[in-house]
C-alpha cells in the first residue's frame, strides 16, 4: 500500500443553470515515500483540480467529488473539515505556482512561517522564531533572521518561492504537492528551486506530486509520469519508458511540439492540430479524437480503457496507439538531420 492512493477520482463542477463540467474524470494514481510522481498536461486537463480535491481545498457548493484518496489508511475525501485541517500542513503540504498571491502581503514572512509551527508543532516565541530561521536557512535564504521580519514584497520571486517551500516543509510533511512551482520563475531560478525540491525528497524521503505543463521538468524530476488530457490519464509510465517509447498520440504530439536545446536544429516542429477546446465528451469516445492523426472509427465507441504495455506499469488509453518503433530514437533523429 502506497502512502497516497488516489483511485477513480472524479470532480464535477455543477452550477445551477449551467452545463456541468467534468474537470477530473476517474483519475487513478499512487505515490510512495521518496517517490516523485508527475501530473502533466496542458491548461484545463484537470491536473490542478486533482490536487485541490486531494487537499480538500475545493469549495463545498457546486462541486461533486467522488472516488477515493487514501492517505496512510484514511480516505481524505471523507474526512471532516477539522480532521482535514490537522492533516493539511502536518502530513500533506502544498506549494503553489505564484508565491506572491499565496503569501499574505501584509504579514511578515516570519509570522507566516511560525504560524504553521505553532498550529501543528506547538512551538512558541523564541523557539518558533529559531526554528523558522533554520527553515529559511535550509531552503537557501541568506541572512534568515532578518528575513523573518520582512514582508513578501521585499523579497524577489525566487526568495518568495523558497519562503513558501519553507512553510510547506515546516512540519516535515510526508507528502508534498507542488503545483507548477517554477512556472512563474526564470530558468536559472527554476533550476535552483528544482534542485532544492530534489534534495528534500532525497534527504527526508518525502513523497512529491509534481504538477506541471513542462515535460522538461518532469524528465529530470519524476519517477512516474501521468499524462492527463481532458480530465483523464491518457498515459502513465516510468520516465524512461515515457520519453523513449511514448505510445499515446497525445504524448507523442506533445513531445513533437517542443523545440529542444540538445538536438540538431531541425526545420519544423510537428504541432498537434486544433486546440484544447476541441474535445469530445469521454462518454462518446476518446476526447483527443478530434485532434488526433491516428483516429480510427473505434475511437468514437465510448471511452477507451487503459491498456497495459509492459510489466513496468506503462499503460495508455488508446485504441490505435503509436507503434513503439514509430518514435525515432535520439540517435536516429541526429542521423536524419
Amino acid at each position, binding site marked *: 500500500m502506497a502512502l497516497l492512493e488516489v483511485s477513480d477520482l472524479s470532480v464535477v463542477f455543477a452550477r445551477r443553470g449551467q452545463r456541468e463540467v467534468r474537470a477530473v474524470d476517474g483519475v487513478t494514481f499512487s505515490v510512495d515515500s521518496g517517490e516523485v510522481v508527475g501530473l502533466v498536461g*496542458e*491548461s484545463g486537463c484537470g491536473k490542478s483540480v486533482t490536487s485541490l480535491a486531494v487537499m480538500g481545498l475545493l469549495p463545498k457548493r457546486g462541486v461533486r467529488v467522488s472516488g477515493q484518496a487514501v492517505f496512510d489508511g484514511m480516505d481524505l475525501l471523507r474526512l471532516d473539515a477539522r480532521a482535514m485541517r490537522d492533516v493539511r500542513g502536518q502530513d500533506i503540504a502544498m506549494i503553489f505556482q505564484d508565491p506572491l498571491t499565496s503569501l499574505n502581503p501584509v504579514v*511578515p514572512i*516570519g*509570522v507566516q512561517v*511560525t504560524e504553521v509551527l505553532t498550529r501543528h508543532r506547538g512551538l512558541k*516565541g523564541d523557539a*518558533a*522564531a529559531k526554528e523558522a530561521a533554520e527553515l529559511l536557512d535550509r531552503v*537557501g535564504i*541568506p*541572512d534568515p*533572521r*532578518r528575513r*523573518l*521580519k520582512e514582508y513578501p*514584497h*521585499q*523579497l*524577489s*520571486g525566487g*526568495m518568495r518561492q523558497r519562503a513558501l517551500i519553507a512553510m510547506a516543509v515546516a512540519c516535515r510533511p510526508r507528502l508534498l504537492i507542488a503545483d507548477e512551482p517554477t512556472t512563474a520563475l*526564470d*530558468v*536559472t*531560478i*527554476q*533550476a*535552483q528551486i*528544482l*534542485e532544492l525540491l530534489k534534495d528534500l525528497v532525497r534527504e527526508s524521503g518525502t513523497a512529491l506530486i509534481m504538477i506541471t*505543463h*513542462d*515535460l*522538461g*521538468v*518532469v*524528465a*529530470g524530476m519524476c519517477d512516474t509520469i501521468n499524462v492527463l488530457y481532458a480530465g483523464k490519464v491518457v498515459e502513465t509510465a516510468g*520516465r*524512461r519508458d515515457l*520519453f523513449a517509447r511514448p505510445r499515446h498520440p497525445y504524448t507523442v*504530439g*506533445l*513531445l513533437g*511540439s*517542443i*523545440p*529542444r*536545446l*540538445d538536438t540538431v*536544429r531541425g526545420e*519544423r*516542429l*510537428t*504541432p*498537434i492540430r486544433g*486546440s*484544447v477546446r476541441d474535445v469530445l465528451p469521454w462518454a462518446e469516445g476518446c476526447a483527443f479524437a478530434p485532434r488526433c492523426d491516428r483516429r480510427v472509427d473505434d475511437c468514437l465507441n465510448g471511452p477507451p480503457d487503459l491498456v497495459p504495455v509492459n510489466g513496468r506499469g506503462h499503460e495508455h488509453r488508446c485504441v490505435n496507439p503509436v507503434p513503439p518503433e514509430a518514435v525515432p530514437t*535520439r540517435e536516429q533523429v541526429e542521423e536524419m538531420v
Partner: protein
Amino acid sequence: MSAASETLVEVRDLKVHFPITRGVLFDRVVGHVKAVDGVDLKIPRGKTYGLVGESGCGKSTLGRALLQLTPVTEGTVTFDGTELTTLRGEALRAMRRRMQMIFQDPLSSLDPRQNVESILVEGLAAHGIGGDRAERRKLIGETLDAVGLPRWALSRYPHEFSGGQRQRIGIARALVVGPELIVADEPVSALDVSIQAQVINLLQELQDSLHLTYLVIAHDLAVVRHISDIVGVMYLGALVEEASSDDLYREPLHPYTKALMSAVPVPDPDVEDRRERILLAGDLPSPANPPSGCRFHTRCPWAQPTRCAQERPALREVGETGHRVACHWAEEIAAGRIRPHEVRVELVRPEGDVDVPVLPVDSVALP
C-alpha cells in the same frame, strides 16, 4: 551570419534609462533604472534575431525602443538607412507601417470591443492602404488566409477565440499593413505547448513567403534557438554574448550563457541525468543599482579577483565566425585555464525597493 547579408536594422550604443522619482508634491529624481545600457546589434534583412534573457534584463525595453515606442535616452537606431531616433510626428508614423509588433498576451493587446475586421481595418485606414472597401476586404481576406483563420472570424470578437487563434489575430493585425520588420515580444509564452508549435511554425512560414525580418524576444532558449538565425543573450541591460544560433548552442563562451543553457530542462531523462548543471547563486541584481565592472561578476562562478569587478567588458569578437562575447576571460574559460568556484549569495531587493528602511534586527519582536 554571412557578411554579405544586408542589414535592415542597426542599433548603436542604445541606452534607455527610466528615472526613479520620489516625493509627494514634487517629484525629484533619485536615480535611474538602466533598463538598456549600451547595446549594439545588427539585424540582417530576412533573418531572425533572437533576444534571450531573464525577466528584468531589458529585452522587452530594447524591442520597444527599437520601434520608438519608448523614448531613447542615448544612441541610434537605423532602419533601412533612416535614423529613427530623430524622426518625429508624421514621418515616424509613416515609418511604423514598415515595422510592427506582436505582443505576448493576445487577449490584453486586442480591444475586446472591436471585432476582428475592425481591428484589421484600423491599421489599413491609419496608413491609407487600400483605397475602397472592396480592396481592403481583399487585403484582409488574404491576411486571414496567411495566418490560418477562417473568413467568418471577421465578425467575431477576441473573446470568442482560443489562445492560439487570438495570437493569430495579433499576427494578422501586424501583417495586414505589409511590414518588413516584426518585433515579436514573447509571442508564444502565454500559449499551451501544443499551440506554441503551431504559432512557431506559422511565424516561420510567413517569414519564408513574405521575406519578413524578425526580432524575437523570449525567455525560452529552446524556442529562440529553434527560430533564430542569430541569438543575442542579455543580462542587466547589455548584451553579454551574440552568435549564430548553432555556434552559440554548440559553444557558449560567456559564463552566464553557459549557466542559462545548463538550466533549461530537456525532455529526455537520459540527458537530464547526465548533464552538468551550473547553478547560479542568488537573483538578478537590481538594474537601478547594477554591480560595478562586469554586471555578472556578483553571480559568476568564474569571476576573477582582477578586472571583473572594476572594468566593464566590451562586446568583442572571438574567432572568425562573428561570435561576440563580453567577458574578459572568455578564452581562458573555454580553454579550461580558469576553474569555476563557489559563489556567496548576495541578497537582491525586488525592483522599486531602492531604499527600504531596514529595522534593526532586535527592534521587532516576533509574536
